[in-house]
């Protein structure tokens, strides 16, 4: 019988789609009967989406460094470096 602790260790692999059919079924069965693990799995899903959202925020952030980089690149090209 799959325990809540077992499930917590496999949650990541489950969400990454890395488990075989039998293991996935065992997890789905456990989730259908266990409120705690259902909540935990939802928390892990939310954690992942917040992680991605944080990267998206960084993507829309400042780009002040770009000009320095382009200047250094062009300078290097002109001096043949």
């Amino acid at each position, binding site marked *: 019988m799959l325990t809540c*602790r077992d499930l917590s260790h496999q949650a*990541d692999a489950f969400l990454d789609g890395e488990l075989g059919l039998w293991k996935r079924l065992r997890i789905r069965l456990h989730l259908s009967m266990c409120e705690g693990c259902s909540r935990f799995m939802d928390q892990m899903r939310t954690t992942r989406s917040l992680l*991605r*959202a944080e990267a998206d925020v960084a993507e829309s952030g400042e780009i002040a460094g770009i000009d320095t*980089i382009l200047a250094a690149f062009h300078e290097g090209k002109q001096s043949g470096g």
Partner: protein
Amino acid sequence: MPARTEHDAQVLSGLIEGKREAFEIVYRRHNASMVRVASAILRNRASAEEIAQETWIAVLRNIGGFEGRSSLAGWIFTILSNKAKTRAKRDGLSVSLDTSADDSTFDDAFDGRGRWRDMPELWDEMTPERIVDGRQILACVGDAIDGLPPAQRAVLVLRGQQDLDAEEVCAILGITEGNMRVLLHRARLSLRQSLDRIGG
């Protein structure tokens, strides 16, 4: 061809042609993560920013030679990691990441029969827009990432945010796939715990 891949191909050719807009897209997509990964190796934010800048110059100089054997992101992060390791050696730092990741703290959440001691909270309002102590929750997520042990932070950024292939992540950081999985799992659990402290 999927839209993202087609877009990536356009960005790549723009980059090869030296177009500023293409560089801006790639810079926005990767720079913050590059600084995080470099600081995981160098343990120093200022050095990490320098290494990210040097990496961009190398990317612009060598983009014509990019053969597409890895993803563009994989290629960029490989250059970054090589530069960061060289700097670490020069500064007398250990180059290998400490890949130990202890799960025992999390196991305290369960009783002797492997059941939850306390029912996990419902996170009804855990959205990116939520404000906690005057800051958006994503700022708290950022702090939690920056507070992770270096190896976990590097894996989480490369795999969980930059979506690099598992093999690419292992090659860039010089770790095994088994290590990577444990570190990634541990990092996501830590992040979950930080969010749980903020409150469901």
